[in-house]
Structure formats: structure tokens, C-alpha cells
């Protein structure tokens, strides 16, 4: 068959000659045409930034979304092909009348130096119609300029919820150097604080791009490839916009924080901190000289508007602490709800010092002592309990620890203990009875955040389950998720302890002589505790505004089946009962108007009956909420139901 091999040789030869002819035809005969095509060949990559997911409140109302903006971008490849340097061009553009910010352009060019040249550099975002017209009119002179659409964060409610939302900004160079930001490139918008930061992976989408061919004058003649962006997930928060708005209005111009949450599952309904800031600064104006000045002013402001007082501010608790001392004493069996009287004695002699009570309360029982906030009673109860048991119990309630809220940079604070004193007071490291007495009423070495306080009080009110406070409800859309990070602390409290404390706190608001009467809401059974935290010792305080007491009011409602817990802290105003309790009342009124009727309707079809209880027993429990009932409502199971 060797003739067949020869045949193959001829076949190959013919095919190769054929190829040669084709090459001749393309390269020699049609050379001119293809050379021109090659010279006109210019490709650009125009990114299509993915819109970030919107942030919605628990009822789906928009809190943050995006608005379309235009950016002027520079194609560096084109520029290089024309033999020009970016910095010269920028100077020339400014001289020609295009308003560019030298500083941010310089930073961008530097940052983009590591990126392939076909990737454009943003010269100016938020381009005005005049800017766009300017660029379009000079397409011939400056073919390297282009216009790109870029969605930008929009805050229809202004500063509302700023501390929870956080803000976005361009990724920093330090972040880019870290491995977890591998997929990001310079100029990417990333969450820098708050929900925007914590849930960045959900909110951010995936940028798309268009690859287009342009002719030598920069005119787009065709699209080679288009990869559509994948928008980020919309996120639904647990926040209720109405409650949030009321909370912020109630703080008014005063420094302080308000948190309202559902103690049954940890969902935060409102979280306000004042003074506040405008998140649109970071999204829209930060690359302008005015924006940078605004930012510097924010950082320099002594009142620290960027700081979220609800989770980062730590304060002495004042008398709200008495609830924890009482809970510990009841659980330890030092007193019982029936046998709990102790003298007030207008105060207590400790060593050579007399520690005063603000009133003369005779021989109150626990209930009365809480209602009138008798210090003398708690000095004595605290001494019986002792610092070690006090420390153990408050820590079980989650005080002095981070709550695990899904917001960044939460502060842990601290609670009184022997170790703490030894560490911070080296000249007198020994724990003394005086320290215990002071600690019993929430003064001295205690500093916790408003969030910790409301979580602890709410947790006691629902029977000893301290859910993880959170603002994230769900990420919507395909591949979404719900909140699953609840890791409740469970401290099984006796039913009678819980009832005694609930009843006492109800008395604070609803009984004669109660310090929290200003929080009373008809038909809601608000229960709470006031607190007035000394900033410095009374003798030195005087009238200086920044040394006045912090006003606390921590509360929940309704008494027998707590659905909402609210803490109000106002800095340097005075008595909690006078300043903070009325604020809480307005929040409860709003809540009642909005939810109580709705939940009465919902009560016709009790949600618990959808699912057998874990114990297998039918859920018929008209009695006050027990530990099991509280567990039943944990959001873990709520989320299982969906």
C-alpha cells in the first residue's frame, strides 16, 4: 500500500499549496485593506458597575437605594497610543475648563497603576450634564475620554438610621493588600461601616463590562462583548422605619442612644444614636474638596458623630443595675418575693463613710425598693450578695461582653470585679465593702453599652433567654438567606423571680411613687427601670453641663408577654425618670398604635400552633411566659418554619 503513502504525500502537498495561496491572497493581495482595518482597530473596556443591593426596613420600605450617575473615565491605552502622559492630560483638561479634583485623580491614577491598561480610570464621578456635554463635544480632541454609568448610593431619608446603615466608600489600598479582598480592584465601592460593611458580600453585586471597538476618533463602532452586571442582594433589616424615626426625633438634639428590640428573638426595631452624620457624604461628596472638609470636620468633632453610642458608648448603669442585683439575690435564695424586706436607713455607714440614699423609704420589700429606687435597700442587699456572686450573675446576663450584634466595632465595656479593681486601681487594689456598696447601685467600676442593658433586661423579662441582637432580617432574591447567627445565652430563671421582677418594673411605671411614671402608656403595661448615672462624684459635679448625670430608662412591654424592650440613654441631662422615661413613652405609643392591634388580630391564629412544641405537649399556656415559651419563639425556629 505504499502507493497510498505517496497519495497522502500529494494530498498534503496540495493542501499546503492551497494554504499558501490563501496566505498570499490575504497578506499580499488584500494587504492594504487589512492593514487599514488593523489601524482602525481600537478596543475599549467600559465597566458596567453592578448596582448595590437596596436596604429595606422590616416592612420592605426603602431606606437606601441607588441613583444613576455618570462618570468621566479615562482610557489609558488610548492615551498611551497617542503618546501622552495622564498627568499632563489632567492639567490640560483642567486648563480647558473641565472641573476635576486633582487630589482624587492623582490617587486614582496611582492606585490603577497596578491594573491592566485597558481598565479605565474614573476621572470624575457625579458628572454634571455640562461635564458630559463638554466631553462629548471634544470627542475628537480627547478620544481617550468616555462616559460611564455608575449607580451611586441614595439616602431618601437623609441621616435616618445612619449609624446602622454605615456608609460606603472606595476600597482602600490597605484593604487591597489583604488576601480577603483579592477579588476587588482599586476604585471598587465597598461597605466601610455598619450594615454596608458587615453585609458587603451580600449587597455588592458583580460588575459587568462592555468591550467595544472604537474607531480612531474614539467613536464606538460596535460591541464585541457584553457581560451584564449581577446586582447585589436587597437586604431587609429588622428595623421599623416608623419607630426609628420617632426614636431619632425624641433624641432631638441631645446626645444619647435609643435601642428598641424584640426580646423574644433579638430583632432590633430601632437603633438611634445622636449626634449623627450624613452617609451620603461618603457616597457622593468625599472626592470633592468640600466633601473632604466635611469629613475632616466629622472626625474632629468632639461630640464624635461617627460613633454609635448604642453599641460603642459605655456608661455606668445607675439604678437600672438594681434589677440584676435583685435577680441574683432571688436566684441565690437570699430573699424571696414574699420575704424580702430590708431597711432603707437613709443610707448606710460603711467603715468611716456614710453612703446616702436619696430618700427615706423605711423598711421596703424588694418590690417597693425597685419602684422607688431605694439605694439603702440595695446597699444592704448588695453586701449580702457579695461582689463575686454579683459578678458571676451579671456576666451570665451578658453584661460587660459584646452582644454579638451584626454591626462592627461593638465595645464590650466592663462590670465590677475584684480583678478589675486590682488592675485599674493599683494604689488600692483590694476590694472593699465600700466598692460592693457602690457597685450594688450601678456606680463605680461599671460601664456597659445601652444595647447590652436592653438585651439583659429584655432577656430577664422573657424568662432568661438572651438572644443575639441583630439588624439583619434577610437577603432577598435568588440565593438569599435569613439571619441565622442567633446564639442565645440561656440562664434558666425561676418563674417567680421573673414574675417578681416584672411586677416590680411594672410598678416603677404604673404605681404611685414610681420613678418611671412618665413612661406610662394606657393599655400597654409598660414596665421599666430608671437610672441616673453619675459622671463624677456628686460633690464635684456642680452645674457644668458635661458633668451632669446620664439619664437612663430601660423597659419592656407588655408586662406579661414582653414583645418589645426599649432603652433610652441621654447624656448629661439629669434624672432618668424625668428625661428618658418620657422618651420611651412616645416610642411605646407608636409601637402600640402600630402593632398591638395587629398582634391582637394575629392572636386569633396563634403562631405557636403551626408547629408542635418540642416537648410534644400542646401549647396551651395562658400563664405568663416561661423559659420554654421563650425558647419556642427563638428565631432559630422561626427561621426553620419558612
Amino acid at each position, binding site marked *: *500500500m505504499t502507493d497510498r503513502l505517496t497519495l*497522502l504525500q500529494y494530498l*498534503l502537498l496540495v493542501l499546503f499549496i492551497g*494554504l*499558501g495561496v*490563501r496566505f498570499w491572497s490575504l*497578506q*499580499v493581495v488584500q494587504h492594504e485593506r*487589512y492593514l487599514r482595518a488593523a489601524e482602525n*482597530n481600537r478596543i475599549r473596556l467600559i465597566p458596567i458597575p453592578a448596582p448595590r443591593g437596596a436596604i429595606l426596613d422590616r416592612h420592605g420600605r426603602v431606606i437606601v437605594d441607588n441613583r444613576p450617575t455618570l462618570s468621566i473615565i479615562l482610557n489609558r491605552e488610548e492615551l498611551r497610543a497617542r503618546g501622552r502622559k495622564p498627568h499632563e492630560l489632567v492639567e490640560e483638561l483642567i486648563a480647558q475648563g473641565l472641573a476635576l479634583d486633582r487630589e482624587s485623580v492623582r490617587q486614582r491614577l496611582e492606585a490603577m497603576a497596578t491594573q491592566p491598561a485597558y481598565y479605565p480610570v474614573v476621572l470624575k464621578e457625579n458628572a454634571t450634564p455640562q461635564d458630559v456635554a463638554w466631553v462629548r463635544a471634544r470627542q475628537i480632541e480627547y478620544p481617550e475620554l468616555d462616559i460611564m454609568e455608575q449607580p451611586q448610593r441614595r439616602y431618601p431619608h437623609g441621616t435616618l438610621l445612619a449609624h446602622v446603615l454605615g456608609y460606603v466608600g472606595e476600597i482602600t489600598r490597605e484593604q487591597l493588600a489583604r488576601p480577603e479582598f483579592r477579588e476587588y480592584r482599586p476604585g471598587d465601592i465597598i461597605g466601610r461601616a455598619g450594615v454596608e460593611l458587615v453585609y458587603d458580600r451580600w449587597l455588592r453585586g458583580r460588575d459587568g463590562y462592555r468591550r467595544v471597538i472604537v474607531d480612531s476618533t474614539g467613536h464606538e463602532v460596535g460591541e464585541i462583548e457584553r457581560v451584564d452586571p449581577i446586582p447585589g442582594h436587597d437586604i431587609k433589616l429588622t428595623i421599623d422605619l416608623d419607630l426609628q424615626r420617632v426614636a431619632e426625633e425624641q433624641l432631638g438634639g441631645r446626645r444619647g442612644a435609643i435601642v428598641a428590640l424584640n426580646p423574644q428573638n433579638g430583632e432590633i426595631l430601632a437603633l438611634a444614636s445622636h449626634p449623627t452624620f450624613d452617609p451620603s457624604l461618603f457616597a457622593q461628596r468625599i472626592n470633592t474638596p468640600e466633601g473632604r472638609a466635611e469629613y475632616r470636620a466629622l472626625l474632629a468633632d468632639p461630640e464624635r458623630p461617627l460613633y454609635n453610642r448604642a453599641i460603642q458608648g459605655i456608661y455606668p448603669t445607675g439604678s437600672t443595675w438594681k434589677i440584676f442585683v435583685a435577680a441574683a439575690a432571688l436566684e441565690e435564695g437570699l430573699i424571696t418575693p414574699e420575704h424580702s424586706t430590708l431597711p432603707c436607713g437613709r443610707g448606710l455607714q460603711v467603715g468611716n463613710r456614710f453612703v446616702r440614699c436619696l430618700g427615706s423609704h423605711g423598711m421596703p420589700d424588694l418590690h417597693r425598693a425597685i419602684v422607688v429606687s431605694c439605694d439603702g435597700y440595695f446597699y444592704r442587699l448588695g453586701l449580702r450578695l457579695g461582689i463575686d456572686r454579683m459578678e458571676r450573675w451579671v456576666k451570665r446576663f451578658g453584661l460587660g461582653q459584646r452582644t454579638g450584634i451584626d454591626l462592627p466595632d461593638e465595645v464590650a465595656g466592663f462590670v465590677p470585679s475584684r480583678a478589675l479593681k486590682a488592675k485599674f486601681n493599683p494604689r488600692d487594689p483590694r476590694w472593699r465593702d465600700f466598692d460592693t456598696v457602690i457597685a450594688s447601685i450601678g456606680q463605680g467600676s461599671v460601664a456597659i453599652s445601652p444595647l447590652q442593658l436592653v438585651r439583659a433586661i429584655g432577656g430577664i423579662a422573657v424568662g432568661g433567654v438572651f438572644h443575639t441582637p441583630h439588624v439583619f432580617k434577610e437577603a432577598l432574591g435568588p440565593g438569599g438567606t435569613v439571619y441565622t447567627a442567633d446564639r442565645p445565652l440561656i440562664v434558666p430563671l425561676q418563674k417567680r423571680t421573673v414574675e417578681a421582677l416584672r411586677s416590680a418594673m411594672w410598678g416603677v411605671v404604673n404605681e404611685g411613687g414610681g420613678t418611671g411614671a412618665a413612661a406610662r402608656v394606657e393599655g400597654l403595661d409598660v414596665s421599666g427601670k430608671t437610672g441616673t448615672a453619675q459622671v463624677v462624684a456628686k460633690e464635684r459635679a456642680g452645674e457644668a453641663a458635661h458633668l451632669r448625670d446620664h439619664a437612663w430608662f430601660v423597659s419592656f412591654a407588655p408586662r406579661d408577654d414582653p414583645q418589645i424592650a426599649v432603652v433610652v440613654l441621654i447624656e448629661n441631662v439629669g434624672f432618668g425618670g424625668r428625661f428618658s422615661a418620657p422618651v420611651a413613652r412616645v416610642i411605646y405609643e407608636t409601637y402600640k398604635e402600630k402593632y398591638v392591634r395587629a398582634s391582637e388580630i394575629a392572636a386569633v391564629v396563634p403562631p405557636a400552633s403551626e408547629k408542635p412544641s418540642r416537648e410534644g405537649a400542646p401549647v396551651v399556656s395562658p400563664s405568663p411566659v416561661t423559659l420554654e415559651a421563650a425558647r419556642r419563639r427563638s428565631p432559630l425556629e422561626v427561621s426553620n418554619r419558612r
Partner: protein
Amino acid sequence: MTTYRQRRRFLLDFDWWLLGGALILALLGVVEIYSSQPQEEFWKRQLWWLGIGLVAMFVTATVDYHRILQAAPFVYGACIFLLVLVLPFGQEVYGTKAWLGIGRFSIQPSEFAKIGTILMLAPFLAERWEEHRKTKHPYLTMREVLAALGITAVPVLLILLQPDVGTALTFFPIVGGMLFVAGLRPRLIATGVVGVAVALSLGWYFRHHVLKPYQVQRIETIVHPERADRRGYGYQTYQSMIAVGSGGLTGRGLFRGTQSRLRFLPKAYTDFIAAVVAEELGFLGMLGVLALYAFLLLRALNHAKLARDHVGTLLVAGVVSLLGFHILMNLGMIVGLVPVIGIPLPLMSYGGSALVATFIGLGLIANVRLHRYVN
């Protein structure tokens, strides 16, 4: 145990022309890979693979090919094993799981499976050829043809699972070429040609049912270049033709091709490497490349005629069919005569497995020549 005379004979008789031609093409490939991807490390890696390929060629050339053929079932089996392994463990690139990662390197088992299939087919067909030689009609029976197709079908099916249609396609010229040489009945050849033509026409008629939309577009680009969507799937072909055409008679100069360096040309360092050569070295350079490839293939077929036995002939025929098909299809793709099907250019395209496999194939050719005398 090699004696002085054996070594001397090897040095004198080794096909240095074959090696020289291949080496020039491979080195030109490295240069053009550097030209299209100067900042990347591709060209350095290609040089390493070239070194490995040369060693592989000498090793394959030295051991008598009959001893290599004794190991053929194991080689074939190993290739099948790797092709199976690649399905769960392979690295996915462009939607195809064709690569097995081994440390810092990754190999493409389908490239070696081509050689494995040739080694498996050659002795089988040679024996049949020998049997039929003395008969009146020295042609393969239908059953034998089907058996040969069966041997080919195993790797082809596994490669289709990756899925890599282009690579799977390259097995048919191998078996076709070897069957042709081993004695395919003329009537069967005619039937085959007609059959393929009918299948292609039917396939084209029902193209929207059997092919993916992008595949249809790639083919339509070739059939109606003037109607091709230059922004869409016609893009690769059109850009490649611009690269070739803009090269002109003498080229735009080494490292001066704008099509490849500015990345208008997709995959310039792999499948479209020849377009870079055409752009930078022009028609004259391309003529040299064509001549070298033709020289290698025709010379190899001369060795096939001189072979000591049928197995030798068939080995060479298989390798030539393999390389010839790759070269013709790839260059056809570059100049817009063949749809873009992802077939690399032997010796020049970036890709270690293909380069080493090609040198092993050349080693087999040199081997058949070295052992052409019965001693």
C-alpha cells in the same frame, strides 16, 4: 547495553533533519509566545516543556519501536485511566475539564491519548494488513474497521465528556489515515467520503438542533464571511484575518504586531499563534513555516515507505495524520477557511502536553527510520 558501533550508528543515522525542522518551529513558537504575552511567564514555561519534549523524543527514538509496542496496551490503558481521572479531578478552564494538576504543572491527558491510540491501533492494523496481503483482495474487512473505530471511540467518548469537541474530532483523522494506509476498501473510502458529506449536509440542515448556537455562528462566519457578525462570534476569525492580512509581504516586524500585542487577537499565544507569526513576519515568514511543516510531514511519509514492517509504516502514518490534521485545521482557522474549533498548532502553540506529545510522535517517526534495517 549500547556498544560503540550502536552509538555511532545512532548518531549517524538519527534523523537530524526532522529534529532540526521541529526545533526551528518550536523555538519560533517560543519567540512568538513571548511576543504576544511578554510580561507573562508563558514563554519560559514553554521552553521548559521544549526541553522535556526533546528528551522524550530521544528516548522514544532510541528504544526499538517493537519494544515500545509491547507496552502499547499499558500506555493506552494509562491514557484512558487519566482521561477518566480528569472528569472528577480535572481543572476547569473555559468550561472544559481537560487538565490534571500535578504540583505546579498541569497536563492534558487527551494530548497523550492521541499517541496512546496510535500505539494501540498500529499493531492491530498491521497484523490484519499482513493477513490480507497474500489474499486476492488485500483489504480490511468491515469488522476490522469497526474494531479499529472501537479502539478510538473509548478516548473520544471520554474527551466528549469533558467536553472538548475540538480535541475529540482530531482522533478521526488519526484512525482514518491509518485505516487508509492499512488497506481500506476503495468502495468503503467512497462510501465514507459520501457518508461524511451527507452527514455534514444533514448536520448543517439541522444545525440549530445538533449544534450549540455559538458553534453554528462560528461555522456561518466561515461560510459567509461577508455576513459575519464581526462584533460577535465572527470576531475571532475576523481579528485573526486582520492580523494575517496586515502582516503583508514582509511583516510588521518581530514584536511589532499590534493585533496580538494589543490583544485584539484572542488566545494569541495558543490557538492563534500562527496569526502572530503571519502578522509579525509576513507572507515570507509564513511561507517558511508552511514549508517547514510540509517538509516534516512529507519526509516522515518517506520514512513510512522505508519502514521495516507494516507496524512501522502505520506508526508513522498515524503520527503524520495526527500532526497534518492539526496543522491544516489550525492554519485554515487562522486564515478564515475553517471554523474556530480550538485545535492548537503542533510545535508552536503554547501548551506543554501537546508539545511533549508532538515530540514523542516525532520520536516514533525517527525510531521507525533508525530501525528500518532488519538485522
